[in-house]
């Protein structure tokens, strides 16, 4: 047992470090399904509404995204279908990042060596990381169940759904624990575990939308849906997830002593002894630092565009005959037909995702600064503006590339479905590109903070979150238009379905220019570090 000495202290340390972020992720993922459960009664009041919804739910392209449908005629069954898989994915992601943060990231930064030299057993750090992530998953699952019960749903199904979500978190806790043994870097460990989550999603996506249902049974995310909450619960599936978790976690504990502290089981790859010609200026360096993320985002948006484009035409089936849902979609996206409204809300989503990328790419400058990597650069012939420009190229042009990719594939797959590629691609693409001024404005807010209030640069995420919440929930909550207008995304014309109006795009771009100028001037004047 000496190998576990100190685990208790490390768990407390981890909880202390995560005392803000973990409760937020718990409450968010526990509350969202229960709010959906309340909406069901409102959206689908009559048995006829529900019957048509259940029929439409059998659409394979919808099952690809949301999972298989079992019983959509009850609020519980619908909630489990609509939110179960999504929450399982989110909780799994949090579990992965939590395990890595308290295991590999600690080794990666060298902090574990400091802790390891005190009275701490060999397995203590890994055990602590696993306990915290597993505890997070279970607490979230149980709270989710309690919230559903509070919303008036049956307890059995609520716990089936909650524990199903928790079981996915447990499985990926174990997967992340293994990933942390394989590689030296926390980033790679997160990547490996997230890729495993992606494979799990893909397996069940194919299984649920085709006749090869067995594929879904190979995926831990598939298990979470096959517990069938509110549709004749199959509790034994939980045992499957638990057994898998124990097996994978044990593997992590077997692997741990087979490597040195700080090292990974996979050999570290050597780099090139000379810099390629492209790496000779700030832009070349920014490309090296940003390309992985940009390529990942491009593939992601292209995939999301392609998937949602392919289900767009069947969107009428998903919402059934519910007039309320049609009204809300119409209010959110446009009025000339449900499909256009859906496509327009997808381009709106792309605008927001592009803004998330733009902020992330821009804040890279701040992390380069706080890691002291920018000082040696600025101590060469590189001026501050030139260095900023090299990263802004990604914050501004990268967002444009993402909107083009997402819009193109959304239009393409939808066009292929309806046999009108030459008509759909330009109109959807126009809608996506129209989002650019809003995404740029958000990106330039990141520059303003970076230039003028560098210590609070990350507060731009909070601003962006407010904009996103206003856009997603504002129309449903029927908020005052003046409040909705605070979000730059509210001013973008909904395309397809509406005419392109240049005025809002022009003044949003003007604001962007002003914000950029302010941020860059601030950065030129301030101290580095």
């Amino acid at each position, binding site marked *: 047992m000496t190998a576990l000495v100190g685990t208790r202290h490390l768990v407390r340390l981890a909880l202390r470090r995560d005392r803000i972020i973990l409760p937020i992720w718990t409450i968010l993922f526990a509350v969202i399904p229960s709010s959906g459960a309340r909406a069901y009664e409102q959206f689908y009041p009559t048995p006829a509404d529900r019957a048509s919804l259940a029929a439409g739910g059998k659409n394979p392209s919808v099952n690809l995204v949301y999972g298989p449908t079992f019983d959509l005629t009850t609020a519980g069954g619908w909630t489990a279908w609509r939110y179960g898989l999504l929450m399982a994915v989110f909780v799994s992601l949090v579990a992965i990042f939590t395990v890595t943060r308290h295991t590999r990231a600690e080794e*990666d930064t060298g902090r574990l060596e400091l802790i390891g030299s005190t009275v701490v057993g060999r397995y203590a750090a890994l055990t602590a990381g696993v306990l915290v992530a597993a505890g997070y998953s279970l607490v979230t699952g149980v709270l989710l169940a309690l919230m559903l019960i509070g919303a008036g749903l049956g307890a059995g199904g609520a716990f089936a759904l909650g524990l199903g979500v928790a079981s996915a978190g447990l499985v990926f806790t174990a997967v992340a624990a293994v990933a942390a043994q394989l590689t*030296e*870097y926390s*980033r790679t460990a997160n990547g490996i575990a997230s890729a495993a989550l992606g494979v799990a999603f893909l397996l069940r996506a194919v299984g649920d939308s085709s006749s090869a249902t067995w594929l879904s049974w190979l995926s831990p995310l598939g298990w979470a849906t096959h517990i069938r909450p509110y549709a004749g619960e199959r509790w034994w599936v939980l045992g499957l997830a638990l057994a898998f978790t124990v097996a994978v976690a044990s593997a992590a504990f077997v692997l741990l002593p087979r490597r040195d502290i700080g090292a990974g089981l996979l050999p*570290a*790859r*050597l*780099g*090139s*002894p*000379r*810099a*390629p010609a492209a*790496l*000779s*200026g*700030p832009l*070349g*360096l920014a490309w*090296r*630092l940003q390309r992985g993320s940009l390529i990942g985002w491009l593939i992601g948006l292209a995939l999301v565009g392609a998937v949602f484009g392919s289900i767009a035409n069947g969107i009428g089936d998903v919402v059934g005959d519910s007039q309320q849902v049609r009204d809300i979609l119409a209010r959110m996206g446009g009025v000339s037909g449900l499909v256009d409204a859906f496509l327009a809300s997808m381009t709106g989503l792309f605008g927001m995702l592009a803004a998330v990328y733009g902020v992330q790419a821009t804040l890279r400058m701040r992390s380069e600064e706080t*890691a*002291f*990597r920018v*000082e*040696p*650069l*600025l*101590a*060469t*012939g*590189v*001026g501050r503006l030139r260095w900023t420009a090299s990263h802004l190229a990604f914050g501004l042009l990268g967002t444009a590339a993402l909107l083009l990719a997402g819009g193109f594939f959304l239009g393409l797959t939808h066009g292929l479905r309806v046999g009108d590629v030459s008509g759909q691609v330009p109109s959807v693409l126009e809608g996506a590109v129209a989002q650019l001024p809003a995404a740029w404005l958000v990106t330039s807010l990141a520059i303003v903070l970076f230039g003028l209030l560098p210590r609070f640069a990350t507060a731009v995420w909070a601003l962006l979150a407010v904009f996103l919440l206003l856009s997603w929930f504002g129309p449903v909550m029927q908020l005052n238009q003046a409040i909705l207008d605070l979000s730059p995304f509210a001013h973008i014309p909904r395309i397809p379905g509406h005419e392109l109006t240049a005025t809002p795009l022009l003044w949003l771009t003007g604001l962007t220019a002003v914000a950029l100028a302010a941020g860059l001037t601030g950065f030129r*004047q*301030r*101290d*580095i*570090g």
Partner: protein
Amino acid sequence: MTTAISVSGLVKTFGQTRALDGLDLTVHTGEVHGFLGPNGSGKTTTIRILLGLLRADGGTASLLGGDPWRDATSLHRHLAYVPGDVSLWPNLSGGEVIDLLGRLRGGLDEKRRKELLDRFDLDPRKKGRSYSKGNKQKVALVAALASDVELLILDEPTSGLDPLMETVFQDCISEEHARGRTVLLSSHILAEVEALCDRVSIIRLGRTVETGTLSELRHLTRTTISAELAGTPDGLSTLDHVHDLHVDGTKVRFDVDSHALDAVLRQLTQVGVRSLTSTPPTLEELFLRHYADELAGEKVGAAR
């Protein structure tokens, strides 16, 4: 003699903390200048102002004849900087970083790059994060030393190097010195400063407390004398500037302020000297004296 770096009355505050409080520093062209001071005394802050990374709140600074803040970019083409805490990009190899920094400074001497990699025994293929602290410093050192620049600004460049590499470093700096390059070397390793530096500046709490050549500074310190005399020593204890006197029959041992050596030796020769050993003061003693002042000052401050 021209001046490469000239700083006077430099002031920099961070919130409540006064990091620099009227600091003066003059580095002549072609000299190796040691920049000494305890942790937190303001060495790095001074260097960052000289690099135009921080803006001074008061005083003047000039670097290679230009203003370090206003002319930062053009001045940087003529200097190379090695930070105290080298932070490399995790996904770039050491060789890539050396090439990148060299290209940004306007070109590397290929022959010198290869030679330095050999001498520092550095594998340029490893990725940034797999290097130890010492190896990260070597990456920055190779990049700086292989650049064709007039001025090297080195902020505790050897704190992670082993003794063998420390020797290589000293050889390299001596060569740079011989080529006529100016070096500002912030350091904690006194042997290194004694071996390399023409002049030193010692700073404390953001102010310069001593500056000059090593021999000038030695003048300010005490020489240790032990001697065997022909008879019993008389009158030594009454002399000013003699400290820690030990008398054992005809043997004496004491410290003397360097400027009073003459008078003290005259006193000894009056008695007659059989043998005499004199130990010159080390920089370490000088340095420790300023540290001790600070410790004493802190105690006074705490007692208040």
